[in-house]
């Protein structure tokens, strides 16, 4: 009997303690991101801890998944009724999420702050065609030609290629194949198996050849043009002259010093700095995208990410307050917490003007400064409902050309037909 009473007393005490703890932190937010390396986790946790110290009534839980699983996690989480409050996601998914009612509209204060502190092109990248902005833009990622100075010099070149003829020539000159047919060194690395790793470099080359991805009103695909066919023919020519080979991963092998060139984004800086096969300061070079025969100036593609709030979140005001706190400047000239994270932990370019000013010095190294310059002219990735599906279809056909399974004309015609059907389907669904 006495034991029973003691146990009841203990249980009551426990409940009281838990109740008190819950009362002390009466709002719990979950933030879902894809920044999952050890250093990135520690940096994000430091931001969260600082916010919780300033706002003891709010508890924040950080959840990270690999980029490849992020969209699936958001979708399945919502279907299961356990969605996060705050998402950090790729802007290409925005139209799909908005059409499905996943996102909450930002409060007017946030919209005003974004409008006052972010370039219009970046705001457009996180807005739907009706002009509604859905969150705080974070990293801006244009693509450029990243090259290994040592391998170019060994092949007899002291400058990166400026046009496609030079690109083919230099790539072929760098490639080395041993007696058994093994590629020990490759000219231009591609990133097979990863949609962005294939489609973004293709788009950067397409734009530098005067081509377009979608029409301006985003209702039809425009990559199946003379400029598009020339771009894909470049890949076929590079395969034929040995300048590229899909069996070598540009993403994995450039840092090991066995790939001469790769078309890549600024967030790679942390990887390159830590790489053992290439010296970041003396061997990594960055150049504009080589211009194609139908182009007249270098161009590129830029994609972005954004922080947004789930429409099912029971704590929307708290979630927006947290996002605003992360992105707003705490002291004049000091930049924001996320700006600091993007620039120093990731090597990415932040969206907010105050961050670009505050961290200008950190972005002035030979690597990021080139991307900062490119962000002024790079074309934002066109976001559209069904955009992810179109991108994957295009990736598969580009890989088919790389594998010698099809030719550029057939590949682009096939994707164009499917892409237009997807765009039409989503338009009809919106009208329903």
């Amino acid at each position, binding site marked *: 009997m006495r034991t029973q009473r003691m146990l009841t007393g203990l249980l009551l005490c426990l409940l009281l303690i838990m109740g008190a703890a819950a009362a002390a932190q009466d709002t719990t937010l979950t933030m879902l991101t894809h920044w999952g390396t050890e250093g990135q986790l520690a940096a994000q946790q430091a931001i969260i801890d600082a916010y919780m110290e300033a706002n003891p009534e709010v508890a924040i839980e950080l959840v990270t998944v690999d980029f490849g699983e992020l*969209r699936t996690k958001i*979708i399945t989480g919502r279907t299961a009724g356990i969605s996060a409050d705050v998402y950090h996601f790729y802007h290409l998914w925005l139209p799909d999420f908005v059409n499905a*009612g996943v996102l909450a509209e930002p409060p007017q204060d946030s919209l005003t702050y974004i409008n006052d502190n972010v370039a219009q092109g970046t705001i457009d990248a996180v807005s739907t065609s009706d002009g509604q902005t859905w969150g705080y833009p974070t990293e801006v990622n244009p693509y450029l030609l990243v090259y290994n100075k040592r391998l170019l010099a060994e092949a007899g070149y002291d400058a990166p290629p400026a046009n496609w003829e030079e690109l083919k020539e230099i790539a072929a000159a760098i490639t080395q194949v041993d007696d058994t*047919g093994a590629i020990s060194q490759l000219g231009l690395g591609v990133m097979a198996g990863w949609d962005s790793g294939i489609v973004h470099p293709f788009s950067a080359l397409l734009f530098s050849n005067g081509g377009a991805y979608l029409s301006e009103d985003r209702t039809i695909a425009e990559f199946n043009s003379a400029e598009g066919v020339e771009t894909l023919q470049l890949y076929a020519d590079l395969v034929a002259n040995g300048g590229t080979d899909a*069996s070598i991963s540009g993403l994995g092998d450039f840092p090991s010093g066995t790939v001469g060139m790769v078309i890549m984004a600024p967030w790679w800086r942390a990887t390159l700095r830590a790489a053992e096969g290439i010296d970041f300061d003396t061997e990594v070079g960055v150049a504009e995208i080589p211009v194609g025969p139908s182009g007249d100036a270098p161009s590129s593609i830029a994609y972005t990410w954004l922080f947004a709030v789930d429409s099912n979140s029971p704590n929307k005001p708290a979630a927006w307050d947290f996002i605003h706190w992360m992105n707003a400047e705490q002291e004049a000239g000091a930049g924001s917490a996320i700006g600091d994270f993007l620039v120093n932990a990731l090597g990415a370019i932040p969206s907010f003007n105050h961050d670009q000013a505050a961290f200008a010095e950190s972005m002035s190294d030979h690597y990021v400064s080139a991307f900062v310059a490119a962000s002024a002219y790079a074309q934002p990735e066109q976001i559209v409902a069904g955009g992810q599906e179109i991108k994957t279809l295009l990736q598969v056909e580009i890989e088919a050309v790389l*594998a010698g*399974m099809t030719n550029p004309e057939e590949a682009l015609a096939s994707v164009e037909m499917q892409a237009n059907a997807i765009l039409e389907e989503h338009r009809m669904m919106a009208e329903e």
Partner: protein
Amino acid sequence: MQARLSRRRRAWWLPEIPKSALMRRRMLWAYAFVAAPVVALLVFLLGPILFSGWVSLHRWDMLSPVSEMPWRGLSNYRYLLTKDPVFLKSLGNTFFFAIGGVGANTILGLGFALLLNSRIRGRAIWRVLYFMPVITAPLALAVMFAFIFDRNYGLVNNVITAIGLPRQPFLSGPNQALLTLVFIAVYQFVGYYIVLFLAGLQGIPQDYYDAAQVDGAGKLQEFRYITLPLLRPVMLFVVVTNTIGALQVFDLVFATTGGAPANSSMTVVLHMYNTAFKFSRMGRASAMAFILFGIILLITIVQVRLLRDRAYQD
């Protein structure tokens, strides 16, 4: 007379109510215990299957409320069977994978089981060696083989070029990726089928072989007229379960090629996964699941009929 009438009136599916109160109480408890797994089965197995069938007749992105799914009738099925080149390609790839895998597993499984059933040295060690891949995590095996079959640095290419043969692309080659996946799957599962065949072989009485030897039968005749017929129940199990597993292959392809290059190693379940979670087309993915279910059911019925009838006749 009254009791007989009431028994006649009772519906066939209703249980007979015992007269004793104790028995009635016991019966109630029995039904209560049975009810729990039945309800779990309905909620977690039958429910999702029916829901998936319902979804396959709609367009659903998994994000919009279920109540707002637009009705599409059979258009998802029509699209898959007439307009989706990736689905048709993945169906062909899956059949190739299943036929190759089941054929190789059955022949090699039986062959190695016959060897292990004979008086060879270190039988226990061989059994352990063959069974080890079965207990290895499939994803770990897949990653290991991705390295082993690498075009440029892989062990296999180093060996074949050392003996003067040309370097092969294996997993990165459109004509070799699927064949390489079949090889990996056979390596992974053949040990399991060896154990099954071995158990079957050890269940065949020695008397039959002794009698056959007295009648002057040779080893081949013993195999043809004793071993094979008596192994048919095991063969049936091996072929049916292996076929079902092979038609549902996912993890191996996901971790090695991801369906690349250019869908040349894409399988139905991987395409289903991409369609559902990458493209948010749950209706179309559910339709794929039902088409695959129909195919598996049909093949299983044919296999069971072909092998079972003969097994029982023998």
